[in-house]
């Protein structure tokens, strides 16, 4: 017998045992030791007979940039962690394929053929109630009270930063630039990422920080501290929906589709509230009661899915105020 054939015949049973791999590209905190990734990995691997391989980038914006830059030559199957503001740009670059996953019966209105949602939240400002006794109740009051210092995120590089630009534009529309001008002196730090900015707020660098209405739940449920609270603005709060999609040159389409379906089940969603500290897209108000109690849903503004041009105009409003 040919020697090569013999070797291949001997190795064949081992190759049959090799598991399929699903490569997911996400932002760092999702798959950190303290994020939901490790638990989700265990749950999915217990039902798929596959290996789930994570790779990470610094932020949502960095995720999209990386696959744009490389045309996904790095071979990821799923990109997890874009937000609704980046969906249009992602579609325009022809990087994703349609998913055909049912998205009925979710806690949010969703209808998109390329992406499925996995969590959502509302932007808000967080304050330390031990230091700020009379928090502002509206954007108008915030701009009038010059003594209040704020940390925001750079809208060019951070999705919460872009979320604030969206929020201000939803409320002030053509007057957005003027509003940015009014609060410019109060902004003490414009951080590159949400985690940088939030960390600096906890270090005492400002009175308010741009974050989510769910942030106080982390302090309350993990640290047992109730001093951090979310502002409730009369104008309402803008929302953010985080999504995932199957990349164009995914090597394992069936497995990728199974993961998207899995993401809309309890097995995935149960780890979102106290892992990613966002609202799950399934209604888990009964099983996650303590989370919803600590992070009640605020008054919501209409959901907006901006085009790339709208997104650029929000950023331009902000940039104009910096230059001025």
């Amino acid at each position, binding site marked *: 017998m040919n020697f090569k054939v013999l070797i291949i015949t001997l190795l064949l049973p081992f190759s049959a045992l090799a598991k399929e791999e699903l490569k997911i590209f996400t932002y*760092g*905190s999702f*798959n*950190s*030791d*303290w994020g939901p990734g490790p638990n989700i990995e265990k749950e999915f691997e217990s039902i798929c007979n596959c290996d789930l391989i*994570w*790779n*990470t*980038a*610094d*932020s949502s*914006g*960095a995720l*999209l*940039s*990386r696959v*744009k*830059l*490389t045309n996904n*030559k*790095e071979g990821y199957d799923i990109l997890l962690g874009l937000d609704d503001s980046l969906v249009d740009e992602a579609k325009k670059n022809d990087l994703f394929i349609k998913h055909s996953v049912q998205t009925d019966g979710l806690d949010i209105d969703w209808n998109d053929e390329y992406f499925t949602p996995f969590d959502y939240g509302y932007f808000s400002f967080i304050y330390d109630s031990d230091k700020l006794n009379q928090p502002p109740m509206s954007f108008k009051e915030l701009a009038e009270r010059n003594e209040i210092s704020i940390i925001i995120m*750079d809208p*060019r*590089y951070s999705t919460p930063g872009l979320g604030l630009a969206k929020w201000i534009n939803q409320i002030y529309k053509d007057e957005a630039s003027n509003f940015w001008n009014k609060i410019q002196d109060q902004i*003490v*730090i*414009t*951080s*590159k*990422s949400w*985690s*940088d900015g*939030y*960390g*600096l707020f*906890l*270090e*005492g*660098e400002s009175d308010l920080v741009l974050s989510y209405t769910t942030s106080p739940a982390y302090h309350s449920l993990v640290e047992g501290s109730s001093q951090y609270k979310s502002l409730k603005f009369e104008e309402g709060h803008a929302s953010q929906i985080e999504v995932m999609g199957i990349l164009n040159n995914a090597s394992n389409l069936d497995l990728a589709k199974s993961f998207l379906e899995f993401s809309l089940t309890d097995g995935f969603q149960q780890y979102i509230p106290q892992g990613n500290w966002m609202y799950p897209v399934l209604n888990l108000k009964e099983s996650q009661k303590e989370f919803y109690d600590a992070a009640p849903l605020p008054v919501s503004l209409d959901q907006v899915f901006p085009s790339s041009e709208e997104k650029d105009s929000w950023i331009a409003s902000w*940039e104009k105020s*910096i230059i001025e």
Partner: protein
Amino acid sequence: MNKFYFDWGVSFLRLPYLIYLAFIITLFISSLFIFSDIKDFKEFNLLSYLGTIKFTFFQAFLACFISSIVGFFFSLIFYFSNKDPRVISSFLNFCFILPVIFVSFGSIFFYSSNGILSIIFDWLPIDYDMKIFSLKGIIYVTSYFNIALNANFFYRKLINIPENYMKVLQSNGIPFLKSIRLQLKKFIFSGYSSVLILSFIFCIGNFTIVYLLSGSPNLTTIELAIYQSIVFDADLKMGILLGITQLVIILLISISIIGKTTTFNTFTTFKKSYKNLEKSLFIEIIFWSIIVYFSIPFLVLIKGIMSFNTELLISITFLKSVFNSLLVSTLSLSISISLTLSSLYVYRSFLDKKSPFHKFIFLSISMLLFIPSLSLSAMIFYLNFKLNFIFESIWIVSIINSFFITPIMFIFLSGKFIENHNFEFKNITLLNITSFTRLIKIDLPKIRFEFILVCTTVFVLSLGDLTSVTIFNNSTFKTIPLYISQLYSNYRYNDAFFTLSLFIMFIILIMYLPSKLLKQNVKS
């Protein structure tokens, strides 16, 4: 008849340098291809980066200016303090090569709104208004390193003032400070242009400091803009173009400063004559204040030790980061050693033959100092993309690190390596000694002290690097500085400070052992 003789040692010694040249040329040519599909040059709106370019040079000039003045003042205090020059010089060297991430976080720990200084002010009680995440913070941390560099340079000059000079001054009753202004200026400032350039390059390329302390989009340097172009805007072209812009401006400024200097004499010995200066309480107080100033970042060690965390020590992420850091530093050092020795060999062989090509070798290596590390990262990223990602991140980061430590090694070793080369050349020709034997038997023993010191220094520099790894990291590849920065970003301050403390203690150990070894060698 002449017998054909092929010296394998020569080819072996030239090989790393030739590989390096080929790699650099390939890299530059492939980077030019990225611009091949340009239809309209207006798409490069470099003018929109005018503010960034202005800020980059403004902060660099400011930090250089402050560092020169403060450094000179510190050197005078050190000179008048009558302390052991070796201890002072080693201390300043140590401060200069401390990891940027350590000094940055140490300064945050001391100066931030919840920092030690704020607590002291609260207790007094005085309003505290220092914002570390600002231009002040960037200049403060950048200057920390440059003050150490400048002070060390001036101090070595002061210590080496010839004794007869001092005697003449004393006999004429000219006060020392007046004599500096009138007569010693030329001696003290000779060779300062190289320090100024080194200082300026450091200030321009201080990515980590601006990355950690920039609190506003207005405080963006070119290095940070390159990072943002690559990581967030998927715009490699702009990253490379910004890098070229920075390179051109640095080169122009450097050429105007340096003139025709081609070697740096960095290992001056302590000859002299500092003795018998009168001790003064005033000098003593300022001396210890300066020591306190340089020790401020070390206060973070107290916080770190108090935050001891066994779980973190055995966590996979921590252990992987330690392993990656050591591997990257070892690889970088190995690449640098072979490239440096090879370049030095080629450099000296041209000198032996009195060929002007030695200048080309010097330039081809020292130009690496001027290329922004993130631009080089952009170029390598593009090349790797074209080669379907054949290089793993660990190799890319090691290569980039080695490219930045090689010129340092080359510059520091070149003086000693070429010492007496004419005399040696004549003798080895007469004795028919091969190049390889010359390297092993003559060169390496000759430079061994400097070699060990420089290897330690560049190993530490590579260990503390947080530039290219910000672009090439992934979930399996993190280094310790990146791990610390991510812990801090995720407001796990105690863990960040604990890891930082372990890291700096390890670095102190690395720096201590070779100096101990050298001392024993000297005694024996």
